[in-house]
């Protein structure tokens, strides 16, 4: 089985409009703040605070970050499951809006989401075949046609529909449920799939199976993936490009090999250095950074990472670092004052 590389966007897809060079999805300055009640009146959780990125056709973009970094909210913003406060989404050249461009419903026909396997990811009162058939049914297929689609999708994800179709979720293992979730997402033939911690709850041996399946399906169905995970090893394996988030903002973005071999942002370095060694003879002796991620309510001023950053200087508190200018798939940029020549940071590039 061959893998679609980032350089080979899908060909001859009738749903494609802008051509292979046009990005499938552009997110510009997406912002979502949730109002919460705190001891001192109302406060805002800055879940997603001005996130921009571009998703190219046929690629897998990995999004990593710790809890509270806003990666799951970002996924929901992309599908308008949560309405963004501000920002713009462009899908294959068309703005997502009710008046002009394509509607949210049209977007949802082309973008699907696979949730983390949990007790709530499948309707407990519905046989899994009906769950998979629901999407095609909603989109106007007859009951019989939807059922046929569901059966063929179950087969595609490695579940025999005769054996599994009439089962309820509680009669399936975690890996089987996740296969059903994938089948459900693919049943309406989307072009893009958002995988939100889709393999995180699975056992390692099952996780590997599902990752293999995801890779195969991507090739079979000309898919573009947005792969959200906290597991750097998995992101490294499956992604073409990686976006690192911290407290609702993008801190680094670039091709996967670049990010893993030459991380620019101190946070990315800390994340990479926190991975267990897998070698009992070379254990990690000192944690790369200390402390927990701060609360996304009232994040630190300036650079959000400065409270945990070993290189923090006054400039980091004073000014928010910009994510550098990026142009194409090969761009590797980081939001850090040390990456800007005359930022005022003593370790800025050129100063050393």
């Amino acid at each position: 089985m061959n893998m679609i590389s980032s350089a080979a966007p899908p060909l001859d897809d009738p749903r494609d409009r802008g051509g292979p060079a046009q990005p499938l999805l552009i997110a510009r300055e997406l912002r979502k703040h949730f109002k919460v009640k705190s001891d001192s009146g109302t406060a805002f959780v800055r879940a997603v605070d001005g996130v921009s990125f571009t998703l190219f056709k046929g690629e897998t973009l990995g999004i990593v970050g710790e809890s509270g970094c806003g990666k799951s909210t970002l996924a929901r913003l992309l599908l308008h499951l949560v309405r963004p406060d501000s920002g713009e989404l462009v899908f294959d050249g068309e703005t997502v809006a009710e008046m002009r461009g394509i509607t949210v419903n049209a977007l949802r026909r082309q973008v699907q989401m696979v949730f983390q396997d949990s007790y709530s990811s499948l309707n407990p009162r519905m046989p899994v075949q009906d769950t998979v058939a629901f999407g095609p049914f909603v989109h106007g297929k007859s009951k019989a046609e939807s059922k046929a689609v569901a059966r063929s999708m179950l087969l595609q994800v490695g579940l025999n529909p005769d054996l599994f179709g009439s089962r309820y979720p509680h009669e399936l293992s975690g890996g089987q449920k996740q296969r059903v979730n994938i089948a459900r997402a693919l049943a309406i033939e989307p072009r893009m799939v958002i995988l939100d911690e889709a393999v995180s709850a699975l056992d390692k041996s099952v996780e590997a199976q599902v990752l293999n399946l995801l890779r195969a399906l991507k090739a079979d169905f000309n898919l573009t993936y947005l792969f959200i995970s906290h597991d750097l090893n998995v992101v490294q394996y499956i992604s073409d490009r990686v976006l690192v988030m911290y407290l609702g903002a993008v801190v680094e973005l670039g091709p996967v090999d670049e990010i893993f071999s030459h991380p620019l942002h101190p946070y990315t370095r800390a994340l990479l250095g926190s991975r267990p060694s897998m070698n009992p003879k070379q254990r990690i002796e000192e944690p790369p950074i200390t402390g927990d991620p701060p609360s996304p309510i009232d994040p630190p001023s300036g650079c959000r990472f400065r409270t945990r950053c070993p290189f923090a200087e006054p400039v980091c508190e004073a000014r928010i670092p910009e994510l550098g200018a990026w142009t194409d798939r090969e761009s590797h940029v980081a939001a850090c004052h040390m990456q800007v020549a005359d930022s005022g940071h003593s370790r800025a590039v050129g100063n050393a």
Partner: protein
Amino acid sequence: MPEMDGGLQSTGSSATGSGLAAGSSNLVEVEDLSVRFVTREATVHAVNGVSFAVRPGEVLCILGESGSGKSVTLRALMQLLPPRRTRITGRIRVDGQDVLSLDRAGLRRLRGGLVSMIFQEPMTALDPVYTIGKQITETIVRHRGGSQASARARALDLLELVKIPSAAQRLDNYPHELSGGLRQRAMIAMALSCGPRLLLADEPTTALDATVQIQVLILLRKLQKELGMGTIFVTHDLGVASEIADRIAVMYAGRIVEEGPVADVLANPLHPYTQGLLASTVHGQPRDQDINAIPGSPPDLRRLPTGCAFAPRCVQVMAECRAGVPEERRPLAGRMARCIRVPAGAVLADAVADRV
């Protein structure tokens, strides 16, 4: 803080000393432990004949996937399973005491004093309506007696021991006011409050973020060494095990299928399940190839297959595998595997590596 550190260390080391003096060299001995959950509809064979031992000051990692029986084994050690529908057979000795024959008072002494446990989710283990300081103080007073003031002083020592910043203020925080990492540290402090000689850890870092997980792992490793606690650490994560374990026991379908020093097992796994688990754990595999995954899913614990439970998923399966449960084989010093392909007697390491 130095004198406080010394105080804690001395309690730890003196406890270790008394344990060694007690005669037996093992802190924990488990023999042929089986746990079944009986319901009206089915009997779940969660643990099926598990034997292992832990020396004082040693870290044993029990590694397994969900349903392997690793957590059930751990809870059986503390008698934390619902008694009405649980059937336990076998022998569990902790510091020479037969745990399965202890009465309620004996169990209480065991749970708070000799053995402590930390859990995956501290929010469920800490009481949300009391402050951290109050909970630790109460535990100390209940098990050790003494005044509230002295217990509170010790609680503060403990919070500093687990490296909670501005510990004095944190004593008056409620669990929900702490971040995940601090909560986990507070739970560790509470577990250490009565100077346990055996620490049971049930996936204590699984729910934590990556940068926090490594901090807690390093902290646990340090504390365990300083206080000389025997530790049984349950995890599903090979990486976590490689960071903390001295020895590792791999469980599958309620049996230990392989056991040995962690470096040896990871470098040269004997059992096909351990080999498969290593191969399917994602860590730097080539991106353009499929991961060498174990096919299928673990067996239903209500109806285990006869013979080797891994046989249905094993790529090296033979007819004999289904005949009976493979007995323990010890081809190398300190190594054990339950697989009929592993040579029965002691042989050279190379020969084993060649055959498997």
